[in-house]
């Protein structure tokens, strides 16, 4: 094939030109004249460094590389002509005694990319505002119910306080000891109840500085409990019976407590409204948790025996601003927002087909999966830096959260697991560099877990994690299971880190 003629180079939309040995422009196409905003007579035979406001070294370096290797590509380079800013890439090729130079204009792409990032940030911010507004809206709709919830214990407290007053009027207080104690107990209980409701409200409305993106290891049971605390009054006022079914064993996910509560509260509110508006007999709200080990998911199901979701609107309920509620009630953002929150958790929210009533299913990945998913981000961020992956097995979420926190500022990468069986599954799929395990766990205990681990998994360093009562077990297993050490609860960040650093020394 012959080299393109200058006639053909004339057709290019991007600047193309040839350079002599002295880096003077010989041929150039009209696109170059357009770019430089110069007439042809000011381009021909000019030194390229005079035309582009670029360092002379840029062209010299490119020329050298082209002459050595026959061709060369420049890095992305920024320059301005007049008031315009440009980003270009140049590609050079030796053609006989000349150097052919073609270019690619990336200016628009680059400036659009910058603008796109800006818009995305803005969008993120407004999303957070929408989330917050939806919470305020939800709580607003719950106010009547909540004040009712507060009024009950308040009535109990003031009643008991009155009794206390009577009791205090008697001469021999000792005789009244029993009733005094009882009243005090009742008042205490009532105030605690009020306190929890208010704490729940505050927690729900709280917005942390990171815009609530912060995820922790949480028990889904506590999400359900807190949501019910805030909606109990509303449920009571509509005479709705709630049936909660949470099977034994932990249901831990990596998530944001408030955001997940937001989903549950929204779903409970929708169920309540639909059952109340339809005047259902024996209205019942069912909430249950299920583990789906084969899908590596936990599902949270909320269903009611109301009129359900009609086929006409089924496809629309997750759309923005869709609402079946009358004006002024509901923003129509609830379900679409809930779905977005579920997706932020690598999960899903869907409507399940059901005879009579509505059934929503929130699926979230079990923590072993989400640990890896969230760490994937870290991997891609760090690229070349190979952090050591530490698998921590403990059924206590506070310990998992603590370890995660401790490792956040180190180069170690935290992977959490809530039990021996799950941890073994993790080890089947992924490589880890060290294991730290609790001893007393439901299901298989720590010692048994490590036995299995040693049978099917290589000589990875393993540490026990326990209070002093686990010492004996540690001494017993140390040789047999080739343990690298023990971390004694309670422990400090420095202890955890130095233990791990010691293990990877040399």
């Amino acid at each position, binding site marked *: 094939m012959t080299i393109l003629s200058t006639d053909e180079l004339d057709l290019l939309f991007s600047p193309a030109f040839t350079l002599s040995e002295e880096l003077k422009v010989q041929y150039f196409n*009209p696109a170059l004249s*357009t770019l430089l905003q110069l007439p042809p007579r000011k381009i021909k035979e000019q030194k390229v460094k005079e035309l582009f406001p670029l360092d002379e070294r840029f062209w010299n370096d490119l020329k050298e590389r082209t002459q050595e290797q026959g061709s060369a590509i420049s890095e992305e380079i920024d320059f301005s002509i007049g*008031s315009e800013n440009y980003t270009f890439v140049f590609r050079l090729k030796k053609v006989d005694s000349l150097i052919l130079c073609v270019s690619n204009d990336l200016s628009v792409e680059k400036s659009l990319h910058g603008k796109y990032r800006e818009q995305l940030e803005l969008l993120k911010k407004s999303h957070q505002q929408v989330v917050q507004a939806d919470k305020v809206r939800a709580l607003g709709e719950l106010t009547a119910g909540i004040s009712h919830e507060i009024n009950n214990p308040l009535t109990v407290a003031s009643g008991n306080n009155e009794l206390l007053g009577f009791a205090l009027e008697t001469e021999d207080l000792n005789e009244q000891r029993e009733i005094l104690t009882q009243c005090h107990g009742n008042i205490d209980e009532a105030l605690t109840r009020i306190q929890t409701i208010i704490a729940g409200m505050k927690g729900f409305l709280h917005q942390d500085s990171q815009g609530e993106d912060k995820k922790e290891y949480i028990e889904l049971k506590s999400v359900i409990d807190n949501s019910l605390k805030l909606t109990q009054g509303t449920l009571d006022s509509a005479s709705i019976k709630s049936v909660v079914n949470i099977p034994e064993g932990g249901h831990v996910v990596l998530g944001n407590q408030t955001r997940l509560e937001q989903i549950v509260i929204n779903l409970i509110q929708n169920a309540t409204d639909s059952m109340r508006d339809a005047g259902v007999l024996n209205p019942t709200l069912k909430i249950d948790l299920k583990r789906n080990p084969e899908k590596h998911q936990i599902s949270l199901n909320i269903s009611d025996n109301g009129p359900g979701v009609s086929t006409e609107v089924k496809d629309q309920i997750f759309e923005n601003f869709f609402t079946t509620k009358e004006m002024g009630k509901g923003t129509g953002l609830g379900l679409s927002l809930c779905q977005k929150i579920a997706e932020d958790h690598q999960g899903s929210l869907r409507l399940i087909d059901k005879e009579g009533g509505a059934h929503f299913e929130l699926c979230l990945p079990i923590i072993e999966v989400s640990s890896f998913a969230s760490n994937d981000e870290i991997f891609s961020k760090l690229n070349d830096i190979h952090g050591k992956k530490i698998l921590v097995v403990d059924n206590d979420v506070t310990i998992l959260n603590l370890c995660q926190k401790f490792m956040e500022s180190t180069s170690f990468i935290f992977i959490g697991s809530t039990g021996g069986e799950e941890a073994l599954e993790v080890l089947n799929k992924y490589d880890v560099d060290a294991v730290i395990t609790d001893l007393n766990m439901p299901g298989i205990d720590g010692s048994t877990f490590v036995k299995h681990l040693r049978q099917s998994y290589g000589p990875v360093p393993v540490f026990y994690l326990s209070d002093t009562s686990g010492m004996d077990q540690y001494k017993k297993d140390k040789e047999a299971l080739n343990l690298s050490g023990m971390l004694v609860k309670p422990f400090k960040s420095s202890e955890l880190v130095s233990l791990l650093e010691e293990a990877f020394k040399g």
Partner: protein
Amino acid sequence: MSKFQIDLTLNAGQAIVSLEGVMDEDMVLEKVQGLNEETLIFDFDKVTSINSCGIRDWITFISSKATDSKIVYRKCPKVIIEQLNMVKGFLPEGAQIESFYAPFFCESCENEEMVLLSPNHIKGRKAPTNLPCSQCKTEGIEFDALESQYFHFLPEA
């Protein structure tokens, strides 16, 4: 102040739209979106630059107008002529160019200037050769670009 502005004058059956500044992704054409006058005159005199996003938006806009109105381009600067020559659709079918700028150079005093021409000044894509320099008044300043390229938007003969 925005990088792009539009001035709009409405006469009987005619709208004069003066464009000013940078035509890029931030250009907003809302103000002229609803125009349906018989003749739409676009004055590009104060347009300083245009990028591929601006071209795209402009083509979408002008092609929607060209079906119902007669389109006239007035005082197209060099940056617009360069696009006219390169991008199909920038000048919709049936549209008319009333006037445009062309670069000239005076060899006597080295003055560079943009001269406003109309298409009937150009015969066979050749620039007029008898224009006087605005500074030294020497006659016959030279066209300061490639004629075949610059006048590509005009008929060959």
